[in-house]
């Protein structure tokens, strides 16, 4: 596993991100092959899982105020399952309608998706609201999917030119 904590001072996001690319092939609870994951950490630094029923993390995610005053995750782990990408690249082929996508490009698109979970303000606000018992129906997957798809489209276009 390659592990590289990013230096928060070099980005506009205050979150300390642990970015992992693992050779593991991973499966979700429901048997789906897992390609990537974003986990917020609690105040003790523990990476949290997701509670399907409450639609929020299964613990208290820790937040900090970013430079612009926005609420951001204090710490998060992003994991890209390279083993899953290598085991079934066809999932991404069909997902992006791109028969020429490579595993490396897959790592980029999946990473883009997971990074959006870490930076999309509406998504962060939704998670915080739910954690505080407030209703917030925001679909946190749509923004991540949109940015991921845009990255995939740009990679495809760039490759052609």
């Amino acid at each position: 596993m390659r592990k590289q904590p990013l230096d928060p001072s070099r980005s506009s996001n205050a979150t300390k991100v642990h970015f992992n690319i693992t050779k593991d092939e991973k499966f979700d609870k429901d048997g789906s092959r897992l390609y990537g994951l974003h986990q917020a950490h609690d105040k003790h630094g523990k990476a949290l899982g997701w509670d399907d029923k409450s639609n929020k993390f299964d613990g208290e995610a820790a937040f900090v105020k970013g430079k612009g005053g926005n609420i951001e995750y204090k710490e998060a782990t992003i994991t890209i399952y390279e083993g899953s990408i290598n085991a079934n690249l066809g999932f991404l082929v069909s997902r992006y309608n791109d028969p020429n996508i490579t595993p490396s490009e897959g790592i980029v698109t999946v990473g883009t998706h997971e990074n959006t979970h870490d930076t999309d303000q509406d998504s962060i606000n939704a998670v915080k609201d739910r954690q505080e018992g407030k209703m917030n129906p925001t679909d946190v997957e749509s923004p991540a999917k949109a940015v991921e798809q845009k990255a995939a489209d740009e990679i495809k276009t760039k490759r052609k030119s």
Partner: protein
Amino acid sequence: MLLVLFLSLFVCSSSYTICAQQKSEAAKKLESDKARCKPNPDPLYVRSRVLGELANVLNESIPEYSKGVPKGFYSDTENAIGFFVVDLMNPANKQSTFHDCVDFINGHVYHVAPGDSYYSLSHIVILEEGKLKVFRSVNCPPRGDRLEDAISYVSAKLARDKQREEIINRVRNYKKYGFYGSLHHAASICEHRQ
């Protein structure tokens, strides 16, 4: 495919040599695409048309998907983009990768769903005399049809079929006959709506 040819012409307009080469490649791609799948064996159904109709069904059932992917679910001549199709009467007959060529056969029962587990609301589709009978989102009771209704319907349809019990079991366990991937910590759009 016409768009590909058009873009090839547009992109390479600055150089005749490159242009000719790219046109040739585009033409080759067109030919190879045409040749990949044999025509659908049942003349009642045209593969590309059925794939397109199934994509439309999914877009109607799962409008949230197009927020992330503006094109939504769609198909080209032989591929399902963003979703899979599995024939529950013969699970080897499927469309889950760009190497597959699913056959659409009258009377057969199919499991159709998005490959992304978050958006994956399962549809049971029966081909009937050129038309599609669809039981929508059977894994999401708040917004879909009941799986039991799909099972009763298929059971009645297959009353005289020797494989009836086996096929009904597959409909009941439709989730096993699917190809899923996930980039999410959220379980499914169904739970999200609840």
